[in-house]
């Protein structure tokens, strides 16, 4: 019984991290129909920023989580720079060019990080010192609960932002029709830049949550995590904000339960297997809408 509760909590915690990353994929895909494979590497950038700024914060006598704001600024800067330098020039060349550019950007960021920070994995100092809660004899780390609540709050905030603000409405308009959006006075380029800024900011938050559970930064941490989160985004229905959340949590829970109750070595095979089944049954994902493709 206690193992079951513990596994649910572990799964939700891991799922919340996947969900936060998946939100970044979904935001960008929802607006410009492009899969930003460099998103995972923005998390790597965020994690390294945390690694270098947390000691500074502690040194200055401030709480370590304040470095989150530094990480957000750095990630937003990198995200917007990548968009301006690499993605904007190829936007007209079609989705295949954009995809390849994103993959190239991902490799570039990884290798740049190797040159700048060295190849050694870095251990990130503790970010939160939170008490341990006990339910029915199960020890639950309150930082896990914090990760989940941050995930849910961000998802709700994003949904409201996209639904009710002016920029949010413009964000929804752009993918429907770029030319018409321009006609009604929406600056398409500015909206895309804003989307990247938001997505990269989310990556910094995801980096914080990731590092509080797995306190390690490596140059290639983004690729595996990014892949899992991408699966989560597709499972939930890419482009849909609640879908990313549901997909993330599903992937997290499935992984943990497969590891505990079925076969530990099979967890990745089973996760990807479920993705394939969902895509066969419902190609747009769990929350995805069926939009007819314009011919």
């Amino acid at each position: 019984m206690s193992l079951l509760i513990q596994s649910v909590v572990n799964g939700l915690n891991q799922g919340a991290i996947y969900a936060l990353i998946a939100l970044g994929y979904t935001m960008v895909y929802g607006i410009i129909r492009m899969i930003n494979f460099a998103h995972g590497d923005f998390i790597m950038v965020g994690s390294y920023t945390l690694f270098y700024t947390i000691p500074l914060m502690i040194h200055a006598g401030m709480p370590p989580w304040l470095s989150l704001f530094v990480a957000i600024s750095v990630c937003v800067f990198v995200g917007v720079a990548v968009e301006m330098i690499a993605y904007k020039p190829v936007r007209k060349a079609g989705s295949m060019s954009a995809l390849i550019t994103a993959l190239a950007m991902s490799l570039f960021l990884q290798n740049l990080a190797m040159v700048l920070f060295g190849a050694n994995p870095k251990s990130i100092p503790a970010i939160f010192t939170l008490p341990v809660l006990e339910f029915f004899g199960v020890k639950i780390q309150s930082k896990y609960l914090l990760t989940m609540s941050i995930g849910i709050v961000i998802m709700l905030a994003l949904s409201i932002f996209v639904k009710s603000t002016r920029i949010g409405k413009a964000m929804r308009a752009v993918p429907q029709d770029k030319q018409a959006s321009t006609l009604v006075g929406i600056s398409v380029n500015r909206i895309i830049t804003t989307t990247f800024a938001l997505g990269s900011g989310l990556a910094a938050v995801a980096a914080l949550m990731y590092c509080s559970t797995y306190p390690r930064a490596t140059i290639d941490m983004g690729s595996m995590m990014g892949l899992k989160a991408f699966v989560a985004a597709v499972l939930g229905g890419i482009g849909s904000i609640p879908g990313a959340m549901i997909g993330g949590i599903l992937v997290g829970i499935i992984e943990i339960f497969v590891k505990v109750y079925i076969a530990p070595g099979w967890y990745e095979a089973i996760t990807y297997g479920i993705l394939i089944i969902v895509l066969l049954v419902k190609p747009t994902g769990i929350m995805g809408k069926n939009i007819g493709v314009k011919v």
Partner: protein
Amino acid sequence: MKKKMVGILLCLSLTTALLAGCGSTETTESTETMTETKETTEVGEEDNVIKIGLIAPVTGGYAVYGEAGQNSVLMAVEEINAMGGVQIEILNNGKAVDDAGDSKQAVNAYNSLSAENPEIYCGSFSSSCSIPMAELAQAEGKVLISPTATNFKLTLVGDYIFRACFIDPYQGKMAAKFAGEQGYTKAAVIYAKDDDYSNGLKDAFVENAEANGIEIVYTGECTSKDTDYTAQVSQAVASGADFLFYPCFLDTVPLLVQQARDAGFEGAIMGGDGWDGSNTTGLEAQFENTYFTNHYSSEDTAEEVQAYVTKYTEKYGTESLNAIGACYYDAIYMIKAAAEKSGATDTEALKAGMTGLTFSGVTGTFTLDSNGDPEKNIVINTFKNGVVSWVTTLTPEE
């Protein structure tokens, strides 16, 4: 026009090279150096220079070991070359060829060195990288000494393969013995099933558990690339274990220790020599009551150890000071000892010298057995306040 110029230049350089080869007295600076290098390679066997192909994981998750290995080798080579007598040349311009801890890259590294025709290979760090290289070396008839690959299969590849460290069956047995002596009775094991080293240590620990009064209550699998162990550690806690054996490498050790403690595991956690150099920053409390077996302790007061530790710290600081460096250092001195024993520096002489070699260095005094494995002391370390601290040294039985 340009093409023509290049053609003429090429012809000119070719003719000079030809002339130099004939031993003509025509002298330009470049031809002179060419004849010189040619002579040294031709003499080969009596040159008194051992050409070593060095392989280490300079990047990747085990980069701190590769760095220690490379630094220590440079230190050893500098010392040996200053002594006179047998000289050592590290191919690839004095640098280790990187395998990044990956067996495919290890084979590439081996092949790139093979083109430079070394007399002996020294490497690599991990068993997963060293075993495929050992197979190539054996087939080619070249000596290979791995400083730190502890999987027992390595030296069974053939008679050209040696190592400078103890083997996993011994390491796992000693870990089980230590756990038994400390009074632990229920052990959980989590191991990386995609890694030769981890499998070898797990098997050895499990085999010897019963004899030391330990019951294995849970066995969990992971891979060496995982970062999430919450599923495995929560099962270990649920199984009621008071001892957790985690025979994996340093890059994942802080992750496992933190997640185990987070899940409420209060017993001892133990690993092998792959734990050396683990980063404990911010996890000092979680690392209390953890142990690992190792090749040497930097706290050892023996003269060789202190000389090595002092010199290494002066040159490269303490961050990369670990037992893997010490093993690489000893491996280079073992190669020198082998050359001195047989009185020549070619591959066959090194093989003859290495067989049954008795050696005394930083990681102890030992004799290579018929497989090419040393039998030596094992050190048990713990972490106190995040810093490695020596607990005891166990000596081989029999």
